[in-house]
């Protein structure tokens, strides 16, 4: 009850907390601290309540906790003095995504893993107290995708997606295990299989030698030391899904960019958030796709995957090629968007509402959808990072007189973009983008930086601009770029869907363009990925990449 009231207070009277100093102080002194234990134990609490009360109560309780944290993040991130708390809340949510050494299994006996504690036997069956069983892992995911995914994604002719009631049960078309239906919570009680040691020790990647000073560093090391030889652990997918949805909503909004625009102090705080999110999500995807069943799971739910990705594509409006090459995508685009050119910001809100409604629905979200959501969170986060870094740099280059330039060179021309680029056909293509166009491309109406602008960005010669970029973007990418590259390469190798391939190449494009843009000595190490980017159009036209 107290949590219900807290949620109503902070969501119903948010202006009070934003504008009145006394209530702002309560945010940091009382409300945020009382949420931290819940977020820290999010997964363990979910498992305990799932075992004792089923998926309904566990889903609703987890949803309530994360909705409160979501409200704190989205409504009060730009409130003065609350940024440190935001950083901590995001880190705690990321902490609850990956399995940890001191989880609930360790709390009970010190040796048992959560799989045994919650009653998952060797046959991947979750045993309830009443003696009923439920398949977890692959079986739950496939059935959940059918029951909670495809049936929910019924497309309405009015241009929206209407949520149909998810039916229990359903036959599997994937050849995987069939699960016994257990009410509407079937999809919500899925478990995600993770391989804690994907392919043995990770290869040294560019930037892997950089020390991670983020607050999550200890968690990362604890997680790494926990990994044994090809250990498969099961983590509940619902807490992961709600946390990922919150992070996606955060980075689809302009809050993070606004905070970065506040100056180097804001950049430093957001840098930690970016590092935690990208590192955790890419680790999750790496661990998940190291399990072959998960790859099969996603591929077999290609209907859900396609709808999900295409729905988001329409609103991002920068994957026109993918839309053009897919007849289904064109039909759906007409259904969703019609002929009107509605504002991108409104569509972004629609995406947030749609994903929020799907994830927090009583039927929950399937395991396959969690992986798809994680993949999108990775792309949204990397793009928001690139956009925020470039906006921050452009904002500084617009005010040469107000900043202390150590060299004072080329400040006035840094926004003028003229570059020679070689297209996929081999013809020389000159892209000329003036400062106004670049500023417009970075404006609030465009959430994502168009690829043409990314490829046309010149190398900054101003040391201060380079320093800003290094502070905001490159530092994050150097800590996390290796994992991002690994998961993108893994997806390129395992997934044949052209839309997914384009998205993987897009992620690599954005991340490494940022590094190349900062023009440091490290850019030579990223030369090969940039080559991949330059030929990405040609690559994406093929059905099979490698």
């Amino acid at each position, binding site marked *: 009850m107290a949590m219900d009231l807290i949620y109503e207070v902070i969501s119903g009277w948010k202006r009070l907390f934003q504008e009145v100093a006394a209530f702002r102080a309560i945010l940091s002194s009382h409300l945020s601290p009382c949420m931290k234990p819940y977020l820290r134990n999010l997964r363990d*609490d979910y498992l305990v309540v799932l075992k004792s009360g089923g998926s309904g*109560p566990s889903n609703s309780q987890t949803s309530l906790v994360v909705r409160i944290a979501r409200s704190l993040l989205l409504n009060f991130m730009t409130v003065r003095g609350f940024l440190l708390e935001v950083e901590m809340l995001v880190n705690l949510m990321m902490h609850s995504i990956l399995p940890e050494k001191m989880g*609930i299994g360790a709390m009970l006996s010190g040796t048992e893993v959560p799989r045994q504690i919650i009653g998952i036997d060797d046959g991947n069956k979750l045993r309830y107290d009443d003696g009923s069983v439920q398949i977890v892992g692959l079986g739950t995911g496939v059935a959940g995708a059918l029951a909670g995914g495809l049936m929910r994604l019924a497309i309405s002719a009015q241009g929206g997606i209407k949520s149909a009631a998810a039916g229990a049960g359903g036959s599997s078309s994937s050849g995987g295990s069939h699960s016994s239906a257990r009410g509407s919570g079937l999809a919500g009680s899925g478990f995600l299989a993770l391989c804690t040691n994907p392919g043995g020790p990770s290869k040294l990647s560019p930037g892997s030698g950089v020390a991670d000073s983020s607050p999550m560093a200890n968690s990362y090391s604890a997680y790494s030391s926990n990994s044994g030889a090809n250990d498969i652990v099961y983590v509940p997918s619902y807490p992961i899904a709600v946390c990922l949805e919150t992070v996606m909503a955060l980075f689809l909004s302009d809050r993070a960019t606004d905070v970065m625009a506040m100056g180097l102090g804001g950049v430093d705080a957001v840098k930690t958030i970016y590092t935690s999110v990208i590192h955790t999500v890419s680790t999750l995807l790496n661990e998940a796709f190291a399990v072959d069943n998960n790859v099969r799971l996603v591929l077999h739910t290609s209907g859900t995957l396609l709808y999900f990705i295409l729905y988001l594509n329409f609103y991002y409006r920068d994957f026109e090629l993918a839309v053009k090459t897919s007849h289904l995508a064109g039909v759906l685009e007409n259904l969703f968007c019609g002929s009107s050119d509605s504002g991108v910001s409104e569509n972004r809100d629609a995406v947030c509402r749609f994903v929020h409604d799907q994830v927090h629905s009583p039927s929950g979200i399937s395991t396959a959808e969690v992986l798809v959501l994680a993949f999108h969170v990775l792309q949204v986060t990397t793009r928001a990072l690139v956009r925020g870094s470039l906006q921050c740099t452009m904002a500084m280059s617009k005010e040469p007189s107000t900043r202390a330039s150590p060299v004072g060179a080329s400040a006035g021309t840094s926004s003028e973009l003229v570059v020679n680029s070689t297209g996929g056909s081999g013809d020389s293509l000159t892209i000329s983008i003036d400062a106004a166009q670049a500023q417009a491309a970075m404006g609030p109406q465009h959430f994502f930086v168009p690829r043409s602008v990314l490829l046309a960005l010149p190398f900054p010669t101003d040391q201060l601009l380079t320093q800003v970029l290094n502070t905001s973007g490159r530092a994050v990418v150097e800590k996390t770029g290796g994992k991002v590259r690994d998961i993108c390469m893994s997806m390129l190798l395992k997934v044949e869907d052209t839309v997914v391939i384009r998205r993987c190449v897009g992620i690599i494009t954005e991340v490494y363009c940022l590094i190349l843009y900062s023009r440091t000595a490290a850019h030579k190490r990223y030369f090969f990925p940039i080559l991949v980017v330059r030929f990405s159009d040609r690559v994406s036209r093929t059905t099979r990449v490698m």
Partner: protein
Amino acid sequence: MCNGQDLLTANIQASTGKTDIQLKVLQVVLQLANALAVDPTSIEFLTTSVIGTMLSVSLQLCDSSRYHSSVVSSAFATVRQLMAIIMDDASENLLPQQQGQRAAAVQSPGQSPAKSMAPVPNTNELPKCAELFIKDLSNFAKGLPGEWLNGKILDMPWRWHLTHPFHRRRCGGPQHGHGPHI
């Protein structure tokens, strides 16, 4: 109109254990709070003490292990209504834009601007109640008793109920915090 003695009587009546009396007490509390909050001339009667007693009576009846479900749901609705009253009043009094709208609404058509801008002693204690209530809510969420609503403990968070034995087994020491031990 409303004093602490009346509310003390209501508090005693709420403890009788009879469902119909408890519902009637909640009804009286709700009507009283609504009537006082609507009338600007009588809102001064909603002091910190009165609001605190009203919330105490309502929160006392939110214990689902002791009271009937109809009483608990009514008590929860009463708490929410009281919360809305104090939070709305805090918004009107503390937010700059709302203050201007409220001043314009209070000013009568024939009243001169100079007279309307005359300083009025602020006897409204509801914004203070809002702060205290939110702080107590965060204490309740942690499983701690309230500071303003002294001695009250709202329903224990599920985490505390369910994970407490695990903490005890792992730590091997005495249990910390408040609330029932399983």
